[in-house]
């Protein structure tokens, strides 16, 4: 089996999901310069709502695709409502407050949403019912499943749809104008409150679908799942250049691939038995092809944050970002 190709495929799958979540961060940041720390929780709520619906319909005799679509179809409006509500109730009243206030509020919203989910869905790791039968295709020595393929296709379609929305529609033009100069956007007749609310709702809809995909991919969901996923997607958005829509897409995919490759190779790179003099030092554990692995693939989460730190040090504006530095 070709480990490299395999990890690239896994990475693309994961990266496509990161990209979709990263878009939510970057659009909100672009328009009101807020890092919406609660965005990861919207992904979690999407997964939870879908899981509930899919569980309820699992034995209904409907086709698996219909069931998953029904779950997604419920998750999207619920998440859009959550996204809209957090903007309306938590962030809008702070629009003119110092930047730290909405930022701290975002952390608060994130905690509130997590604990609401805890109340509704318990603290347990919940299993997605295995209703889709996994089919695996072999390509050039690597494996790709029908679920992976579906995730990649859906993510690419959503990104294309979002690009059309942002760059080709009236609402998209209003969003970009509001991001660049909200006062003048208002002077030109744009209701910026509505545009900002729409931005939150659109980001939340993307997050909902991402939640369903992550849930079906890993087969589990838990009320805490949004925080680490959200942080990685946020890192991806920073990698691409926060506020930049194509950047979030690129950053997400890169982040997924880096993480998968890192997870795939860290074990063998940190196997001290590979290094002659160290192997001799270690002695018998390395004999007969033994291993002395420092960091296993359970360290995969490290890579996203290593990338984040590197970006912040080397290129704070991100790969495609132009604006550098903090706006007052």
């Amino acid at each position, binding site marked *: 089996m070709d480990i490299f190709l395999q990890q690239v495929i896994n990475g693309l799958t994961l990266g496509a999901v990161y990209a979709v979540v990263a878009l939510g961060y970057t659009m909100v940041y672009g328009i009101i310069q807020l890092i919406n720390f609660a965005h990861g929780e919207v992904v979690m709520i999407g997964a939870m709502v879908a899981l509930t619906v899919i569980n309820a319909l699992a034995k209904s005799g409907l086709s698996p695709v219909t069931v998953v679509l029904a779950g997604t179809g419920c998750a999207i409006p619920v998440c859009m409502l959550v996204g809209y509500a957090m903007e309306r109730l938590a962030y809008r009243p702070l629009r003119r407050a110092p930047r730290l206030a909405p930022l701290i509020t975002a952390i608060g919203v994130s905690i509130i949403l997590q604990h609401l989910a805890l109340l509704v869905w318990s603290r347990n790791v919940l299993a997605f019912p295995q209703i889709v039968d996994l089919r695996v295709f072999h390509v050039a020595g690597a494996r790709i499943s029908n679920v992976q393929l579906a995730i990649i296709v859906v993510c690419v379609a959503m990104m294309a749809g979002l690009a059309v929305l942002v760059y080709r529609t*009236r609402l998209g*033009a209003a969003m970009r104008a509001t991001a660049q100069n909200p006062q*003048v956007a*208002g*002077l*030109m007749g744009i209701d910026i409150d509505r545009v900002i609310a729409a931005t939150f709702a659109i980001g939340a809809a993307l997050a909902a679908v991402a939640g369903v995909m992550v849930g079906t991919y890993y087969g589990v969901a838990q009320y805490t799942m949004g925080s680490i996923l959200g942080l990685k997607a946020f890192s991806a958005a920073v990698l691409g250049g926060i506020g930049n829509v194509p950047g979030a897409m690129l950053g997400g995919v890169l982040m997924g691939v880096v993480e998968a490759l890192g997870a795939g190779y860290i074990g063998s790179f940190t196997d001290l038995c590979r290094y002659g003099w160290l192997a001799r030092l270690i002695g018998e554990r390395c004999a007969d092809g033994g291993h002395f692995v420092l960091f296993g693939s359970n360290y995969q989460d490290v890579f996203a944050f290593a990338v984040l730190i590197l970006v912040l040090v080397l290129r704070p504006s991100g790969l495609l970002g132009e604006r550098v530095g903090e706006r007052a």
Partner: protein
Amino acid sequence: MSLLEVRALEVHYGGIRAVKGIDLDVEPGELVCLIGANGAGKSSMLRAICGLVHGVRGSVRYAGEEISGLAVHERPRRGLVMVPEGRGIFPQLTVAENLAIGAYARRDPDVRDDLERTYRLFARLAERRTQTGGTLSGGEQQMLAIGRALMSRPRLLLLDEPSMGLAPLMVAKILATVREIARQGVTILLVEQNAKLALEIASRGYVMESGAITLAADAASLLADPRVREAYLGEGAA
């Protein structure tokens, strides 16, 4: 009935009273100019008319309707549009997209015709329609800002220092365009530092000093007024 009727307008920034009770009228079809030194409160007054500042007192009536309570974006829908100080173009949108945003408040089919008319008025913009706004020169940006406002089909256009930062030739050109727009039937309230050129194209003028209107007359008598000549036209006794 006046198109714009400002009464006892005050603007407060925290404890500072930047506009101290102003009365001002603009009749339909007029080109009125407002001159005054830096910090006199001209922009504050325009921003108050547009609903951009809080801490506003007094009344602003437009086309017979009290508009001081309206949301900012409701004004362009009624034909009241401002070109803000510093132009306020969208730097990362193309020229064409900037102009399209100007027509945002409209939903009629004549937008295309107006776009062509705007491009005829500013041929430079037509050549640069796919370029982003931020790459334009200062003069071109001012043309874009005015063109964008025209795309909304304004009844009343508020212009805040359109000549700011431009070379003399470009100043003359922009002000000639302003006069042309007024000729086509758009009512204009023009705020200018360039008092001479502004008074030459205006029919009436106001002079503003530290937040209050100190003179109001037709443009010709303001041009002849010794106080104006001394303070704003750089002439007269030392």
